[in-house]
């Protein structure tokens, strides 16, 4: 629960709610970027962030993102995070 997973911000989806689309290990997920927003949100597109329970918590560089992903895969945490995202989608679908 307490580990973040690296994701790349690929688009801004809702400026007012500070929401963006992030690609996390090949899976796209809408995330909140309030904690890493400085200036125009468009500036975040292409950047990497540690994503934790649907929030971008800290910007990181691409190299760090890659190293962290490898460590999380080793720990099984990356898979766990992806399963939790799928569970969230299922919850919204009423399951």
């Amino acid at each position, binding site marked *: *629960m*307490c580990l973040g997973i690296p994701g790349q911000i690929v688009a801004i989806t809702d400026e007012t709610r500070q929401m963006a689309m992030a690609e996390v290990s090949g899976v796209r997920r809408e*995330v909140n970027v*309030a904690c890493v927003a400085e200036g125009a949100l468009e500036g975040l597109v292409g950047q990497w962030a540690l994503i934790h329970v*649907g929030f971008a918590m800290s910007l990181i560089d691409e190299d760090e993102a890659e190293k962290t992903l490898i460590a999380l895969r080793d720990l099984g945490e990356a898979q766990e995070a992806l399963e939790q995202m799928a569970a*969230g989608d299922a*919850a919204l679908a009423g399951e």
Partner: protein
Amino acid sequence: MKFASEFRDPKAAKVLLAEIAKVADQIGAMKDKPVHIMEVCGGHTHSIFRYGLDKLVHEGIEFIHGPGCPVCVLPRARVDECIEIAEREGVIFTTFGDAMRVPGTKKSLLQAKADGADIRMVYSPLDALELARRNPEREVVFFGLGFETTTPSTALAIQQAAREGLGNFSVFCNHITVPEPIKALLDDPHMCLDGFIGPGHVSMVIGIHPYDFIAQDYGKPIAVAGFEPLDLLQSVLMVLRQIAEGRAEVENQYARVVPEYGNPVSLAAIDDVYETRPSFEWRGLGEIDKSGLRIRTQYEAYDAEEKFGIGYAAGRREVEEAEGCACGQVMTGRMKPVECPQFGRGCTPEMPLGALMVSSEGACAAYWQYGGARAVEPAE
């Protein structure tokens, strides 16, 4: 050294391990008289076992697994209250998956779901918000659980609900804080701790200065660490060097992610939405002063405790832990998981008795997954 081959940079690991051994010898650490280093975070516990760091480091270093897993320190009374809310007419109860299997007095959330309660695992509090928008005729309750890493996300969700004026969303707030239980452990005359590895992602939010008291008031070194094996080894070395040089400071090994003063947006959201509770109950540790957060009166409409008259709003419940469960002793370093009489017998990941076996970040689950199961076999 069989685990070293799994490291991405075995050379760097070997250099660090050699340096750790050198400093450990220098300060006289040995198997019978070890240096006790507590890793506070359950994520670190998991890393230590996954990579076999406890076996790789000098024999004079002993890791003590701290209380840093929010699921593990969740008392049974809180689980009972979650179920009570979830079983009310018209409620959709949402939670992170980690909490689903924690046993309450009679059942877990998973069992309550099987019994018909509308309990849904969500990835984010924002999923709970979306459920509230889509189901205006239902009450959507989010189980706010976690340390400072998770706390701002719930706060930001509550702020968003308030902006939208969502009347059918509330949070059962059980957010807890890291510094106070560390203080409680340091105040315990039976604890013998020589240094700390600080939780990296908590510090990503709060920075490193909330730990100043550990160094200044108790004279113990602490290194805030990342989650890769090399991060942890480097942090152990930083703590040992401080001991060798007679220093006690808060050092930041994870500076590439952890800002010295934390994340200002997260801190502002936490400050806006929550206030400190006078005390909060922890599994295995009892009541700890100022260790939990509650929702401020300003956001009372989003506080499930007030809405449903439950939890601390309704007075404290006394619920004993399961008989024979030694989670408390394990969490305070008084007992190793394999020394618990229930480990691998009455308590396994399939049929957990205590929370330390439920959560993947729990010390018992980590022991079990990475060799503990074998350790218990000869006794059977």
